């Protein structure tokens, strides 16, 4: 029975029909995109899976942008070109550069200067999210990007839940079989493909690291990120990442 299962998996892989095939077998190195963070890569089994949609989720100040920039930086170090669909135009190029992102290899698609911070929460960002989803579809169709990241971190959870369930499925299909890693950043889990991973981050009052005793001598030193990797079959366990300024 086990032999038959292996043969069946091999047959599906040979015909490139393994897009939804879930297996505990480690993926070949060329199908993985390391994040550049040893601890995270260990939990991911080597890196994010190429041709699949993964996600980085967590609340505010949980380290989502830091992990995303690490992923982008690792990709640009490998010589790949990357795309960031910045739904609410919140990417800081100075921080990105400090995190190691080669900005000349980054296609930065800035959302319209939305009124997200001045309009009532109900109407906030719906149009911006729609535009970002469309833009990510165009980038995925263009191909040859190492990472295509969609930053929905500031989007209200209600607005994300209103999206049709096929939205992220379409994105996953657009990159299926390609060398592209799709990454969605958001406040809550949205959708990933079969071999995609969810990097779930958690924030707490004590995640920030400071040095110095008094407020005038105190300096912000970094974040201690509480993370967990979720995938279809592999149970995730919590681990810590240290973001140091």
């Amino acid at each position, binding site marked *: 029975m086990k032999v038959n299962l292996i043969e069946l998996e091999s047959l599906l892989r040979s015909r490139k029909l393994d897009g939804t095939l879930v297996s505990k077998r480690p993926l070949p190195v060329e199908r993985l995109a390391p994040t550049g963070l040893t601890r995270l890569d260990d939990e991911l089994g080597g890196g994010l899976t190429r041709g699949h949609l993964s996600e980085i989720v967590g609340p505010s100040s949980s380290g989502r942008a830091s992990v995303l920039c690490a992923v982008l930086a690792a990709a640009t170090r490998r010589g790949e070109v990357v795309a960031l669909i910045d739904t609410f*135009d919140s990417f800081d190029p*100075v921080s*990105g550069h400090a995190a190691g992102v080669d*900005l000349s290899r980054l296609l930065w698609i800035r959302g*319209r200067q939305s009124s997200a911070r001045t309009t009532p929460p109900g109407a906030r960002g719906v149009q911006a999210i729609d535009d970002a989803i469309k833009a990510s579809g*165009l980038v995925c169709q263009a191909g040859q990007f190492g990472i295509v990241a969609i930053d929905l971190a500031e989007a209200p959870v209600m607005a994300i839940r209103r999206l049709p369930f096929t939205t992220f499925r379409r994105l996953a299909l657009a990159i299926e079989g390609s060398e592209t890693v799709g990454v969605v950043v958001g406040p809550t889990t949205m959708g990933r493909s079969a071999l995609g991973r969810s990097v779930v981050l958690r924030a707490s009052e004590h995640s*920030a690291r400071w040095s110095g005793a008094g407020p005038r001598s105190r300096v912000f030193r970094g974040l201690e990120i509480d993370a967990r990797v979720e995938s279809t079959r592999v149970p995730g366990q919590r681990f810590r990442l240290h973001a*140091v300024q």
Partner: protein
Amino acid sequence: MQHGALMALAHDHSPRVEMHGTGLVLLDVDGLGQLWGSPRQIGERLRHAAAERQLGVRVAIAGTKMAALLATQGRCGLTVINPGDEAERVSTFPLSVLKQLSHAQSSGTTTLVRTRRQTRSVKTVHAAEPASLAVSVLMLLPVVQRWGIKTLGALAELPTDELFTRLGQGGVELQRIARGQDSRPLVPEAEEERFEQTIALEWPVEGLEPLAFVLGRVLDPLCQHLDARGVAVGMLHVRLALVTRETHERSLRFPAAVNDPKVLRALVLLDLESHPPSAGIDAVTVMADPVPARTLQFSLLERAVPSAERVSTLLARLTVLMGEQRCGSPDLVDTHEPGVFEMRPFVPRSQGVRSVGTAADTEVLVPVLRRFRTPVSARVTVEHGQPLRVSTGRGYLGLQGHVVTCAGPWRTSGQWWGVSQSSSSAASWDRDEWDVALSDGGLYRIFRDQYSKRWFMEGMVD
């Protein structure tokens, strides 16, 4: 004779053409023998082509430019001078031929001249000398005529050193002309070629979908023309003649040379989608600014990147969706002003240098600021000089919370030397920055603007 027609005739038969006045043209027909046969056959072909265009011409083919030029002035019809016979064939021409030639070069006569290079060494001397006969040389003609010299042959036979003693360098130059020798090689003129296609429509076109077919009809031949010349489109100008007799013009600049009609059509349509014409279209004209075509050598060792054509199309589509200046690569600016950057066109490179970020090289995670592009106005309660409570309006998540930990203030200012300190300016800044951890778990950067005495939230560490 029409100068343009003469030039067109010349360019149709040789890529190396040199103009002498408005009615005298030199062509380099060297190497055309395999195509059109003997020199005489080439000459006959040229005369036939000129007759078809209703041009009355004299044709001379010689091993040197000067012999060919003199032959057109001294003889009618077709003259073919074999290499080495130049001096002998022009020796019978009277000295007045030189004046005729000078007149033809300065004004214009009905003359067409061909030259055939005798040997490659002929064209290596005196390249800087003027193309036409020098006035100083022509001024020596009356002197020579007073000596009893009447033909070019008699002038050519005079002893050169004696001629130099009496007339100087001009005399030697005059004798070289009389022998039919060249003082400089043929310098072909670069043809200014226009890459333009126009189509006039029988019925006005309204809407982009029918316009796509029309664009295909003008862009296909345009790209073929460009391809034949080994160039591509660097900038494309589209001119639409509208039924209202107005003209709708758009210019598209591409980050890389493009020569694919389908890509060009898509880019033009996407641009017109953003900037549609105000009325129906009567005529479509496309003009291309040519740039050298791209030659790519792909490598198995380098990672593939999107092609320039694909990136151009993608950026055009994204621009339609997100707006102008919303897509590209960010570039840092050499300033301490917070949040300043530049947007540059996204041009992927196949292989680049490693990133200079030190943190990424050591695989250390760096906290990143999520910046509010327009700082959010905040209300901050301050006690003993420290922020105690932060809240914003209902816009940004209705954020409010007690400050758990804070660090600051970090004072930063700049460009204050350009304005008076009493008034705020977009170019100058003066602020006290704080890093604050709020009770909701968020970590923010807030600042107090010293000009307006107001608090703002700049971003969130995430």
